[in-house]
């Protein structure tokens, strides 16, 4: 399997603008970068340089109005996330040309993207407190994500478990359950016991399992149908992001747009409210417990029943990470995941992210303004300034051989704990207003090397050595000062 070869995400000439009363904020101007499979890409820059807007553009979370993605490509595999969406809208419009109602349009439009968000690309936000809903328990919020995206997986688990439980049923009929169960059934029982850990007291839980299984068996046909249906949808969606022809893609989109009519969320809330939730939910709850343990939360069973305000910042961030990882996404976008946390907690969270990447091979985009975090975590780094990517390079190369004047200034302005004698260098001035950005290179008013050409011409992106690109006139070859 060449899972870790190739590109997970390609962003090309992305342009996002905000249309506000004062004018047009040109937040992103031709942002391009590549995320390789299994790597950690760091995006670094000052406040207002467009780091978060990039992340939000990839997730299609830019509030519209006032924001809009003007042009550009965001490619996941072969599939263009922006163009693909537009195609879908076209299909819907062709079918029902009278749809003009904005909200309805957005709903249809977003259906496919809801499938991508959380399942293929998920995101960790800066403020864990704001990322979670204060009126639901931690458990409900993890279950929601699992239910919306991993139904197939859950249904499969139920199926296999219930088969073994029905074996147990016959055991019981034959004369009660003995503690020594041998063979496959015994092994499976152990597995279920581990899964169920903490949910019921030892003595009771077998009985309850059997009860549940009996209930499930009664509805067996229904769940079989659900499984079949959800496998179909899943495989359709998966094939959408592979190499298929245009016609085939259009056909799949047609089928999937029918799916959009069914609102999974309303179904879910109804089910969560029920006193005796159906096996899908209870299985998702078990899964949630396992997820919390995998992000090193002690006493996970209690934490599940807690509300967000009852947990500390570090714990909440772990919960948010658990939700982001619940569906094994290919790409994880971490937007300043440790900025709100203390250093000792930050060390814990970074350790966790490192483990997750090692174990699952997820590609991570790590957005931060802390160059220390970048140095510790990332394979490659993209430096952003005022809506442009000014430099991309492998992490070691960037820290030892920075090219762009802004990168150099940034690196010299950090107080170093390992080298206190180093004098802090200052980049004079402030970040420009993006409604009226400076002409030419956007860094020119603050750059100490600026010359005539900088104020006139936008610098091209030049590859100085392998994998190291710079957007600066100093390196365009001819006119070196």
């Amino acid at each position, binding site marked *: 399997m060449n899972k870790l070869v190739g590109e997970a995400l390609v962003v090309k000439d992305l342009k996002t603008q905000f249309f506000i009363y004062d004018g047009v904020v040109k937040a992103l101007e031709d942002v391009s970068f590549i995320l390789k499979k299994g790597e950690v890409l760091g995006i670094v820059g*000052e406040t207002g340089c467009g780091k978060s807007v990039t992340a939000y553009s990839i997730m299609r979370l830019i509030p519209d109005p006032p924001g809009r993605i003007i042009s550009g490509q965001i490619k996941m595999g072969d599939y263009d996330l922006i163009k693909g969406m537009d195609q879908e809208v076209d299909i819907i419009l062709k079918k029902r040309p009278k749809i003009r109602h904005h909200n309805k349009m957005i709903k249809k439009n977003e259906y496919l993207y809801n499938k991508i968000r959380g399942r293929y690309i998920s995101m960790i936000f800066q403020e864990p407190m704001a990322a979670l809903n204060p009126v639901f328990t931690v458990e409900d919020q993890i279950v929601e994500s699992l239910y919306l995206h991993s139904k197939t997986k859950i249904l499969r688990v139920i199926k296999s478990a219930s088969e073994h439980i029905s074996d147990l049923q016959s055991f019981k009929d034959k004369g009660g359950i003995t503690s020594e169960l041998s063979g496959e059934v015994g092994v499976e029982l152990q597995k279920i016991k581990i899964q169920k850990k903490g949910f019921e007291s030892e003595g009771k839980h077998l009985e309850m399992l059997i009860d549940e299984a009996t209930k499930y068996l009664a509805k067996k046909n229904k769940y079989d149908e659900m499984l079949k249906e959800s496998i179909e949808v899943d495989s359709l969606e998966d094939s959408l992001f592979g190499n298929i022809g245009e016609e085939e893609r259009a056909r799949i989109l047609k089928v999937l747009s029918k799916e959009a009519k069914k609102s999974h969320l309303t179904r879910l809330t109804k089910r969560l409210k029920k006193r005796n939730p159906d096996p899908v939910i209870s299985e998702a709850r078990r899964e949630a417990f396992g997820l919390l343990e995998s992000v090193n939360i002690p006493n996970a069973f209690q934490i599940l029943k807690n509300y967000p305000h009852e947990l500390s910042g570090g714990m909440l961030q772990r919960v948010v990470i658990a939700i982001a990882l619940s569906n094994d996404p290919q790409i994880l976008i971490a937007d300043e995941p440790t900025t709100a946390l203390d250093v000792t907690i930050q060390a*814990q969270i*970074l350790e966790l992210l490192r483990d997750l990447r090692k174990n699952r091979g997820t590609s991570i985009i790590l957005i931060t303004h802390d160059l220390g975090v970048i140095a510790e975590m990332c394979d490659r780094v993209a430096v952003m300034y005022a809506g442009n990517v000014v430099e991309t390079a492998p992490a070691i190369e960037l820290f030892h051989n920075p090219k762009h004047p802004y990168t150099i200034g940034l690196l010299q*302005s950090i*107080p170093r704990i*390992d080298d206190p004698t180093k004098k802090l260098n*200052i980049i004079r001035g402030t970040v420009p207003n993006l409604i009226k950005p400076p002409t030419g290179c956007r860094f020119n008013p603050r750059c100490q090397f600026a010359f005539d050409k900088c104020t006139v011409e936008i610098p091209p992106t030049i590859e100085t050595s392998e994998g190291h690109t710079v957007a600066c006139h100093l390196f365009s070859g001819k006119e070196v000062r």
Partner: protein
Amino acid sequence: MSEILLKGIGIRKYFPIRGGVSGRTLGYVHAVDDVNITIYKGETIGVVGESGCGKTTLGRVVLDLIDPTTGALFYKPNESEMSQLEQLYSELTSGGARELKKEEKKILNTTKDNIYKSRRKKKDFRSRVQIVFQDPVSSLDPRMLIKDVIFEPIKINGIPVEGEDDNGKQKRVRLRGDAATKYILDIVTEMGLNEDHLFRFPHEFSGGQRQRIAIARAIAVKPEFIVLDEPTSALDVSVQAQILSLLKNLQQKYNVAYMFITHNLAVIRAVSTRVIVMYLGKIVEEALTDELFEYPIHPYTQALISAIPVPDPNFKRSRIVLSGDVPSPANPPSGCRFHTRCRFAKEICSTEEPKLKEIRTGHVVACHFAEDILKTESERTGIKKISEIAI
């Protein structure tokens, strides 16, 4: 060392937790618990710790912005008197008991120079000290022009001139009219702002500029001591560098002492001369900056230093990751407060509270195993400097 500017002895601040219908006190948050602090003239003392360790509360109590539960604060005290009082206090508290003894309270409350108890001293003291807050957005009045923001402290306190009056108070003049305008303009240009900025409102400025205004307001009355409560936490690194160098220049010019409160150890290393490390309301380690970063002894300090990400991918080191969160200060662990997360913790740690001991010259640590850690550490790293000094 130079003259003592401020001395705090036995400072405690307990915030009551109220609850129930009648609002009775259910317990106390031990924000600052029995802290002795000395601030010398013209130095920068760094206070570092995780959120909730009481560093901000300490800063405010030292400025007399909030009343402490107990404690005494002295401004430019007589040194011999101080050492006597300190001796007496340490004898009283040597039992290690949590509860405050009567005599102890008496000593702290009745000392005549205690700023917390003397109204006259308070007023003089407050005109000599200033504070810069963390959030420059909420610390400036949105309805005041910048000129008014900076003029307000001058209007109230005046600016100091040479000499003292009969009561040992500082002589101050109140500036008016053109003199005031010129003075404010001087201050503002020094901060890297210009005349236009004086007639704007705070919301028209960026974070870095706002922080400059807050610093200008503090420095306007020429104080001898400024508490900087996380002044750069809300700023970008490039702006942070600007502010730090500004603060350094001001210190050289006015010979003002800083208390630099932050959670960022790298900043502490860049600016301060002495460092206090706090954990759950207690000082766990205190030393000169270079000394602390080269030979951290308390396990908490070691973990804290090893947790800072260094902006250099080739920088390799062994990393100590602390497990768990900071315990609640409303119900701090018994004995050593750090024992729940400490990798060296033994039985004694959970029963007996360690006292601050001087391990090396000027290096004070509160840990039962400080000597052992220093020994093993010096063996492991083979630093000659440590072995040369007799323990």
